[in-house]
């Protein structure tokens, strides 16, 4: 046996060191299933000290490693490095402390997002970031990707809800970044770490901020006979000075798919649906609802529904949350993109996507976080038809370039990972990327941590996700 491996056997007991091909198979890819790589081994640490041991072992033997939570990354972030080590953190899944008075929770990295809110619920508190993978994705993965959700415009992404993190640096040293305070008296090192996609270290303990649950919700569903009208309605809501918790749009194809999948009761013939949700203190929400009603009335919606109960509210959301995976029913395969455009360019972006769709002869379903201009175009294709995957990839690439050209970003929440690293130079200059590389190399001169991700360079061919994640097929999670 490889001497490095036998040394690893001394560090991890048999059940927590996986080396046989059958054991490694589940770790060969993340939710970007078309990318696969065979790691040398997987270790499953149960403590901070064991993570340190694993990283030190990697440093000693110059073996690259990838931290892994639940493997739901949509951009290849948790794809193993061929012949490298996977450090699986699912066993470090304890809630270490819940302090309702200070409104914080301290968790291990493998703790599941949704469980934070569940643990906090008895105290009237919740954890705000709500990626649709929240029933399975881990806080460690959320932190590494600065994950978002439907409520980002008002309350921010993961980064705005992490107070402190204990980190094992790529050289095996441990640091604590941040503190329990919302304030700081020096550079925001934690702010840099969050969203660094596993390149700057492995987090082993995280302090999260909890918020009081809003007292009231007001959820409106508006149907339009044209996508532009829904887009203009978003602009009108913003212009009115309202700050809704969420604003989401679905187009005809997405509506069709969602209806087929979960029968949310959406108006089937609509060309676009807009969901707007107000939240907050009851008297404030009631007053805002009156303004919203007026704005929506003037926006040319031909049908407007207001959720009259929590049940009706959840029904509206069920269709929206199922839209991604539901699209899987309309097409054997699909790619999902995650670009951002300035809100005022939404109409233009959608029109150009429609043109591209016609030009490429591929259907595109649109489901998006309209409030923050975060598009999730779903490109439908059939992988068995020769050349369709390549056409779909080319179309996806054009959409990303379009987002950058309109002044936006190549990713709003799914991260760069493997999938979008080739597009980083369209957003950043060589000097910008070089500065980020310098920071990375200062902490990881051997480039062991998540080697081959985020930065453009040698890499296997771009292979974006096709079809639903196995967990989506099983109905466990849905994408947003």
């Amino acid at each position: 046996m490889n001497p490095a491996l036998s040394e690893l056997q001394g560090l991890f007991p048999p059940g927590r060191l996986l080396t046989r091909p059958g054991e490694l198979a589940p770790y060969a890819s993340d939710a970007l299933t078309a990318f696969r790589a065979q790691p040398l081994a997987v270790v499953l640490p149960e403590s901070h000290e064991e993570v340190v041991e694993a990283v030190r072992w990697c440093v000693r033997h110059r073996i690259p490693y990838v931290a892994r939570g639940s493997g739901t990354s949509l951009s290849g972030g948790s794809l193993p490095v061929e012949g490298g080590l996977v450090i699986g953190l699912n066993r470090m899944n304890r809630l270490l402390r819940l302090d309702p008075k200070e409104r914080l929770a301290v968790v291990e990295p493998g703790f599941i997002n949704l469980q934070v809110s569940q643990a906090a619920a008895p105290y009237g508190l919740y954890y705000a970031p709500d990626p649709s993978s929240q029933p399975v994705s881990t806080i460690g993965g959320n932190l590494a990707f600065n994950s978002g959700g439907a409520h980002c415009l008002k309350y921010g992404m993961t980064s705005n809800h992490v107070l402190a993190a204990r980190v094992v640096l790529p050289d095996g040293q441990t640091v604590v970044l941040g503190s329990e305070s919302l304030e700081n008296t020096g550079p925001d090192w934690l702010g840099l770490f969050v969203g660094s996609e596993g390149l700057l270290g492995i987090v082993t303990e995280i302090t999260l901020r909890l918020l009081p649950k809003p007292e009231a919700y007001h959820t409106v569903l508006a149907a339009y006979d044209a996508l532009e009208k829904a887009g203009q309605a978003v602009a009108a809501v913003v212009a009115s000075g309202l700050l809704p918790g969420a604003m989401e749009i679905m187009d005809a194809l997405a509506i069709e798919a969602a209806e087929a999948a979960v029968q949310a009761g959406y108006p089937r013939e609509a060309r676009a649906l807009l969901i707007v949700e107000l939240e907050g203190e009851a008297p404030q929400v009631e007053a805002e609802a009156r303004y919203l009603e007026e704005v929506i009335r003037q926006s040319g919606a031909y049908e407007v529904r207001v959720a009259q109960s929590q049940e009706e509210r959840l029904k509206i959301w069920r269709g929206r949350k199922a839209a991604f995976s539901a699209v899987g029913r309309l097409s054997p395969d699909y790619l999902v993109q995650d670009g951002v455009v300035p809100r005022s360019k939404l109409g233009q972006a959608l029109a150009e996507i429609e043109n591209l769709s016609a030009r490429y002869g591929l259907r595109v379903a649109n489901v998006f976080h309209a409030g923050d201009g975060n598009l999730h175009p779903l490109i439908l294709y059939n992988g068995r038809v020769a050349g369709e995957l390549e056409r779909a990839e080319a179309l996806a690439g054009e959409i990303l370039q379009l987002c950058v050209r309109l002044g936006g970003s190549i990713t709003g929440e799914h991260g760069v990972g493997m999938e979008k690293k080739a597009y980083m130079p369209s957003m950043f200059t060589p000097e910008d990327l070089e500065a980020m590389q310098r920071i990375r190399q200062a902490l990881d001169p051997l480039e062991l941590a998540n080697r081959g991700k985020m930065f453009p360079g040698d890499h296997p061919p771009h292979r974006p996700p096709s079809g639903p994640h196995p967990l989506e097929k099983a109905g466990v999670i849905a994408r947003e």
Partner: protein
Amino acid sequence: MSETQPLRPTSVAEVQEAVRAYPRLRARGGGSKPALSTPQNGQTLLEMGGLRGVVEYDPSEYVVVARAGTPLAEVAALLAQHGQYLPFDPPFLAQGATLGGTVAAGLSGPMRQRYGGVRDFILGVELVDGEGRRIRGGGKVVKNAAGFDLPKLMVGSLGRLGLLVELAFKVFPAPKATCTLEVAFPRLEEALETLYRLAGSPIELYALDLVPPATLVLRLGGLSEALPARLERLQSFLGQPGQLREGEAEVAYWQGLNDLGHLGAGALVKVALTARRIPALERVLGPAPRRYLCAGNLLYLAWEGKLEELDALLKAQGLSGLVLRGTAPQPQIGIDLAQVFARKVAAALDPQGRLA
């Protein structure tokens, strides 16, 4: 003491040249935080006021982009014309504080209670690093996850990781109406208990300040038609009517606090903490004028005595502070926040310590 004439760059290229030409530099925006912007030990002063002006602002985007030397007051006035504001509520508007200085010092005000501090609203940054390289990070849209989050790193960087030349922020619609309730309690413990109850409740406050010895100052904001009902609910939650401020007097009250001048003379210091630390701190701070903001997460205090004493006192409490005005060998006092992550990142951006 500065040994050279101050430099007044008016373009990014001139900032780059300055960094390459001088061994040690200290940037100054409006000079409202002199402890952070006064050159020492042969540092050359770089006046950033020449890099000024709003570059992009489309109210419907909730995004404003401006050069770093732009005075906060200019930005605030522009936003106000469109019913918007900087939700992190930075201090020293009337003292000429700039966007760059606010980010570098990492300063927010009472209204950060509602939606967050400067770190939560910065979207993009353009900076010149210690080698004179021009670097951009983040973006100009409200949501973006591409690349390392350099904008957040710059919050509180004190000009030591790079000279900020352009910044992008998320902004929000301003509350249409506000009112403020002041409630006094017999003892600190009761004030703190109420502070905790409020912070854990769905009541949405724009400010939740504690004024020692035992007064809470609470600001409500939103639609004017909903405000009376909300105020009533707040009063019944508190179990007392409190003292109400409304209208222009209310707005003037908060404006009057923006320069922190109410704290009086002495060194002006910011301390990061949580409400849990307040009782112990209150026992040792003596008569120093002070005010706790954001449900006890932020303390501004004026210190008449020697800063060495405050430094020791904060260390003993396990807290860190930042001197904004006053003479200290180092503006960062209290516990030492240095660690290896910090040293390595700083060395990557400023290997020769030109900005240190």
